[in-house]
């Protein structure tokens, strides 16, 4: 058998960054695939060891530039656990609201780029139009569009004065998600490209340690938000599909956006009720000495479970910070599921896993 080895990437329009896939092709069929990562390694974990906690805080947003709030939250939460800081309830609600908005914006970007991978050029502009609303709001609140540095140890940096904006944003996005679904969910070409493509069975998904929407699309009931104490008072459903193909991963993300809207609605309600009372949004703390201890902090990010392992041996710098990022696991499964598919399906499958390369390499 004559094979053709194709180096897909690191510079390729559909790898969304710098992933290199070494693919052996027989005609258009993939015989073997080997993901090669590390082109975007910034030493995020090592950098923590030479910086104090406050200096490291702005950096964690950059681990995944599309969902900065989640990594910010994971790190803040770890430090708060380390020092037994109690976060005010208002800060928790603000955090939830911003994280869910961030989840929507991340899923919207995934939606647009995924359709670009499939060859549809319009949806990315629609998705960006809606994402822009969220970005503008973030800019208003935090002063930044992507690298927020808004969560801090003990709460959030500023109070949130604008709730009406959020209400109109989620109303608009709720409408527009309906538009996306009308455009795509029953589009025969879209179905042809995604249904029964890149099927990940329940067993395979758990074996390769997938998390987040990718795991839920395979029918595994797993959402870390139910384990997070700050989500205790929030009522939401876990979106679950059983097929495990690209289409169900698409559906899971679309429905998750709806669920996020539901969560944001509850946050706005809570924050609106107590807007007259002057509640604290930040537990003022001075962090000088840290205990000799290690903590884990996890958060359900848009791409799956993100974990921050923090080891302190006293002093004002972490001894070791380790990040568990879900895209890393979504990338390694490619080796397994790409075998036997054709070249167009590589893009359909890889895109559906929602991999963000900075998060893989850290």
């Amino acid at each position, binding site marked *: 058998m004559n094979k053709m080895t194709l180096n897909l990437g690191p510079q390729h329009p559909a790898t969304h960054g710098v992933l290199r896939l070494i693919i052996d092709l027989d005609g258009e069929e993939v015989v073997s695939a080997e993901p090669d990562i590390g082109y975007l390694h910034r030493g995020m974990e090592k950098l923590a060891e030479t910086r104090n906690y406050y200096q490291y805080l702005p950096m964690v947003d950059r681990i995944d530039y599309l969902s900065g709030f989640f990594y910010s939250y994971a790190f803040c939460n770890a430090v708060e656990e380390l020092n037994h800081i109690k976060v005010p309830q208002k800060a928790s609600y603000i955090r939830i609201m911003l994280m869910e908005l961030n989840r929507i914006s991340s899923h919207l970007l995934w939606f647009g780029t995924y359709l670009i991978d499939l*060859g549809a*050029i319009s949806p990315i502009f629609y998705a960006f139009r809606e994402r822009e609303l969220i970005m503008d709001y973030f800019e208003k609140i935090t002063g930044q569009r992507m690298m927020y540095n808004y969560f801090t140890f003990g709460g959030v940096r500023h109070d949130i004065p604008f709730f009406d904006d959020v209400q109109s944003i989620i109303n608009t996005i709720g409408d527009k998600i309906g538009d996306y679904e009308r455009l795509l969910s029953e589009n025969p070409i879209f179905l*042809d490209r995604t249904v029964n493509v890149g099927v990940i069975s329940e067993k395979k998904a758990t074996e390769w340690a997938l998390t987040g929407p990718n795991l839920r699309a395979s029918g595994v009931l797993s959402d870390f938000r139910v384990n997070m104490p700050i989500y205790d008072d929030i009522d939401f459903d876990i979106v679950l599909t059983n097929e495990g193909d690209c289409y169900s991963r698409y559906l899971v993300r679309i429905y998750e956006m709806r669920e996020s809207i539901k969560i944001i609605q509850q946050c706005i309600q809570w924050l609106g009720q107590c807007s007259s009372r002057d509640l604290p949004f930040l537990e003022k703390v001075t962090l000088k000495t840290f205990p000799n201890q290690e903590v884990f902090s996890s958060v359900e990010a848009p791409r799956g479970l993100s974990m921050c392992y923090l080891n302190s041996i006293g002093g004002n710098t972490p001894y070791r910070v380790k990040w568990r990022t879900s895209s890393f696991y979504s990338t390694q499964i490619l080796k397994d599921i790409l075998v036997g598919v054709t070249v167009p399906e590589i893009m359909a499958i890889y895109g559906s896993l929602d991999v963000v390369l900075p998060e893989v390499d850290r």
Partner: protein
Amino acid sequence: MNYLLNLFIEFLDKHNFNESIGIMIFSILPFAIIAAALVFVVLMLVYAERKILAYMTQRKGPNRVGPNGILQTTADAIKLLCKENIELLHSDKVIFTIAPILAFSSIVVLWCIIPYNAEFHLIDSTISLLFYVAVAGFPMLFHFLAGYASNNKYSLLGSYRALSLTASYSVPILFTLLATIFLADSMDLHKIIIAQEKVWFIIPNIIGFIVFFIASIAELNRCPFDLSEAESELVSGYHTEYSGMRFAMFFLGEYAALFVTAVFTAIIFFGGYQPPFGVYLSNILMGNCRCFNFLIYFEQTFWLIAKSSIIIFLIIWIRGTLPRLTQKSVMNLFWRYLTPISIINLILIILATRG
């Protein structure tokens, strides 16, 4: 053509020119007109596509060069002309160089057999429809050669996709055109147009139109059938290694083909240059005054371009809406659905016209 020639000779006689020089000029002039029109139409089409797609996706499109950005494509073309032609060390230099030229020129040939009005056509032939079908398949062949000569793996994948696509779409196209030939009783594009004086062929041949429209999008190598380019899979497919003017040949050729295919569709199904109401506006306006007879020819060209513009808009609209098909499903679509449908359509039309 004779009418225009006589008009021209009359004009020369009046001003005491030699008649043989006039005939010589006249044999070159129409080609020059077509060449100028081709450049103009292609530049405007690129602009139109960018604008239409921009407004479909909530953008403004080109709006800096010239009024409303209308000169943007001209600027782009000049830029491409000035750019360096990059070649790989191990590419097949000869084929690599001539493939874009041949791909472009085969489309220019298509422009020459189209009757733009009752008088103006460059190649008059009784089998012009057959000629069109034969030449229309050429660009894909040169796309294949270009990809093959590039010595690039993406180009190679793109080029053999182009071949398999050609094998898929040409069969349904041939069968629908056969139906048209039976309806018009001729392979001459002029006679086909005249045969649609009362009823456009889209009415008896609606199935044929749908099949032909889908297949001609595939022939144009446009979304959702742009498998051989497929920028998200194959970078740029067969023209990955092309740059500068050679790339522009492919790029502009694609738009020249878009226009000529739309015109051809208008001729085959929408009565070509005939007015949609059965009567010429210039006849109504001018009455029977013979001196303005030539206005009719302008009107005919206008109708032809108006009809094809709608078809071009449809094709651009489809590009803005649909994701790309895979090779497997393209084959499936053409061989399992469109080919049998077009054969059944042909049989029905033969029975209706001959039975």
